[in-house]
């Protein structure tokens, strides 16, 4: 594959698509698929045939358009988006491509949800067909890889990533350029690249959406990373619970191999890179990098003390680069437009954009990509459209079980790594769950502790026993059986787990408790002193909840 050949594929794809006067895009990512979007696409195809429009109008199965709660979503080439489409609507939609749009299905696109987003990672989501490499190439795909292979040295690639200020999107926010340069300098016979696609946080589905909507972008990012650090083998560790993402990744890898973009001597250079999938088997702790490595090696996913860091001694004892799906997905655009371009977006210390999965008690649930530094209020109330059915906002939870609940008085805080950490939460992988007054924060803390307790791998005592103890106290709180003494013990345990657990799971498990104790102390107090739940959630009827 030479730059010219890539250009040729791109041109012929543009030509092929240009032959159609109209195009109708149907979202076939998991959210819309479970609302029967495939039958919508089939109905559109059948109706095109009936009209004899085969050479006139094309349907395309595309990735996530973002507004998952209103699916199935269909977009026509004049930019109109239709929501809640059923197969029966197909004829009306096809009438609409040349005439008036179907008013009762219209999804307003002039709302902040669409207007205020900045799409870098999701630029192709909802636009290209994830199962055709040609469509990705036609949207400048693999151009960054070719440029890296033909014009740049590994050092220059790393320099560009350092300049961009990109930080790990998996949660901790470690500078990506620094990680790459550590691995590239590490001595080892072989080096490995791992893509962490074991999206474990409940309430987060960004990575799944990227893999389902634009798998080639992740592969291209991994290829560039492999070239930069000198690795020849890579693994994508993906959740077995995401069958569609697995299927599309397998297809994408096969297609890239066929075109010589993956495999031995890529594009005629001495650079070789192979990617294999490894299926996760449902263990939250495998999001921790040393546990993930153990799992790729076929063992129980238990973490080990660091150092040595995986960058020095990782998979099979060799230097290993681990980044998250979204991190890799940011790499091709950075190479394409330059690190300086990327560094202009976002805040001083948090560059670029972040994809958030907005869910819970919020009007517009779905996937959004915004520049770092937007305030929580802008995300929840402008883009998210606020709280439905006239209820009052109570908290927004970021970072999953390792994060915290942020109350209303922090709504004007900018969303970046440092601000969130100062507020007692974390950026996390990007789950953002909005809660209204019908949620009890003590119950939410118990919910997360229940999660951490069952996900604790059991290797270190503070986490194994501490999460159990904390869960017991929280459970007693929700049944009004806890005393003031228990609250003190709960505080003490927060400290203990934070400071003595082996890995991130245990160290961050108290975060939901700490943040709710800090911002919603009066709710805890009501549970202990007045034996009542202000939100009306806890009490006898909560029996039997896990």
């Amino acid at each position, binding site marked *: 594959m030479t730059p010219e050949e890539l250009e040729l594929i791109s041109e012929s794809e543009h030509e092929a698509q240009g032959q159609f006067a109209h195009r109708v895009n149907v979202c076939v990512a998991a959210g819309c698929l479970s609302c029967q979007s495939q039958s919508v696409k089939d109905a559109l195809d059948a109706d095109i045939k009936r009209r004899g429009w085969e050479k006139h109008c094309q349907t395309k199965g595309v990735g996530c358009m973002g*507004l998952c*709660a209103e699916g199935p979503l269909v977009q026509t080439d004049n930019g109109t988006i239709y929501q809640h489409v059923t197969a029966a609507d197909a004829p009306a939609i096809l009438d609409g491509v040349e005439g008036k749009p179907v008013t009762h299905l219209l999804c307003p696109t002039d709302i902040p949800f669409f207007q205020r987003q900045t799409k870098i990672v999701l630029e192709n989501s909802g636009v290209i067909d994830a199962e055709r490499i040609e469509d990705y190439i036609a949207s400048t795909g693999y151009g960054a890889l070719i440029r890296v292979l033909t014009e740049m040295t590994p050092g220059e690639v790393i320099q560009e990533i350092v300049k961009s200020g990109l930080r790990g999107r998996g949660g901790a926010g470690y500078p990506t350029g620094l990680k790459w340069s550590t691995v590239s300098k590490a001595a080892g016979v072989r080096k490995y690249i791992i893509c962490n696609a074991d999206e474990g946080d409940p*309430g987060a589905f960004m990575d799944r959406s990227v893999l389902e909507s634009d798998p080639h972008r992740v592969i291209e990012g991994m290829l560039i990373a492999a070239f930069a650090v000198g690795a020849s083998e890579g693994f994508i560790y993906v959740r077995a619970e995401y069958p569609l993402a697995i299927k599309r990744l397998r297809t994408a890898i096969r297609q890239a191999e066929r075109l010589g973009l993956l495999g031995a001597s890529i594009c005629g250079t001495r650079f070789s890179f192979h990617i294999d999938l490894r299926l996760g088997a449902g263990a939250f702790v495998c999001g921790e990098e040393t546990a993930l490595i153990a799992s790729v*090696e076929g063992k129980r996913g238990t973490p080990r003390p660091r150092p040595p860091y995986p960058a020095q001694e990782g998979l099979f004892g060799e230097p290993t680069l681990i980044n998250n799906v979204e991190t890799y997905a940011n790499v091709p655009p950075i190479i394409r437009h330059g690190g300086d371009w990327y560094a202009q977006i976002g805040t001083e210390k948090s560059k670029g954009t972040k994809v958030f999965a907005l*869910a819970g008690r919020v009007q517009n649930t779905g996937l959004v990509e915004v520049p770092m530094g937007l305030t929580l209020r802008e995300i929840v109330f402008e883009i998210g459209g606020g709280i439905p059915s006239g209820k009052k906002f109570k908290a927004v939870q970021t970072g999953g079980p390792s994060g915290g609940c942020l109350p209303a008085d922090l709504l004007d805080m900018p969303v970046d790594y440092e601000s969130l950490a100062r507020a007692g939460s974390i950026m996390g992988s990007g789950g953002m769950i909005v809660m209204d007054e019908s949620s009890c924060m003590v119950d939410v803390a118990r919910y997360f502790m229940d999660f951490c307790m069952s996900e604790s791998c059991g290797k270190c005592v503070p986490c194994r026993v501490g999460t159990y103890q904390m869960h017991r106290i929280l459970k007693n709180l929700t049944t009004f059986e806890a005393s003031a003494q228990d609250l003190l013990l709960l505080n003490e345990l927060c400290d203990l787990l934070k400071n003595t657990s082996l890995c991130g799971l245990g160290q961050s498990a108290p975060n939901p408790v700490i943040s709710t104790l800090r911002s919603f102390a009066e709710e805890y107090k009501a549970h202990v002193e007045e034996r009542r739940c202000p939100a009306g959630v806890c009490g006898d009827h909560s029996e039997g909840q*896990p």
Partner: protein
Amino acid sequence: MVTGNTVDFNKPTPPNQDKRWRLVDATMRRLGQQSRGLIETLHTAQEAFGYLDEDALRYVAASLRVPLSRAYGVATFYHFFTLKPAGEHTCVICMGTACYIKGAPQLLNAMERDLGISPGETTADGKVSLLTARCLGSCGLAPAVVYDRDVAGKVTPQAIRERLAEWKSHDS
């Protein structure tokens, strides 16, 4: 197993004549018959047989030359693996955060009461298995439930009961 004219005593033979063992063998071969392929092999075995029984664990452990304790340890460490056969139908209730605050506990309560079983169990007649998931990633459709392999969104206790009734009437 016969390789050429010699018998390879190191290679265990499958527990029975079932053709599905060939799938398991193929995965082990693809990964170089090495212990690092343990999880992938268990995935294949579970996909082929629906669950992992003792025969499967013994065979995989012997083939990859790992102690049975390690195969058992891995199979029980990860939630995705199950050592018990599932019922004819499965109903998975998502307990992710978004689903939780939008009413998943009520769904679970209703099911536990109706079926008389806890999550992870199967009804006595082998009809329905009730399971919970950490998060399906269908948060936009919360609360979500997977009926057999189909994801349904914005589920109510009423809807879930209707589906169960449908399963019962179809099969009787």
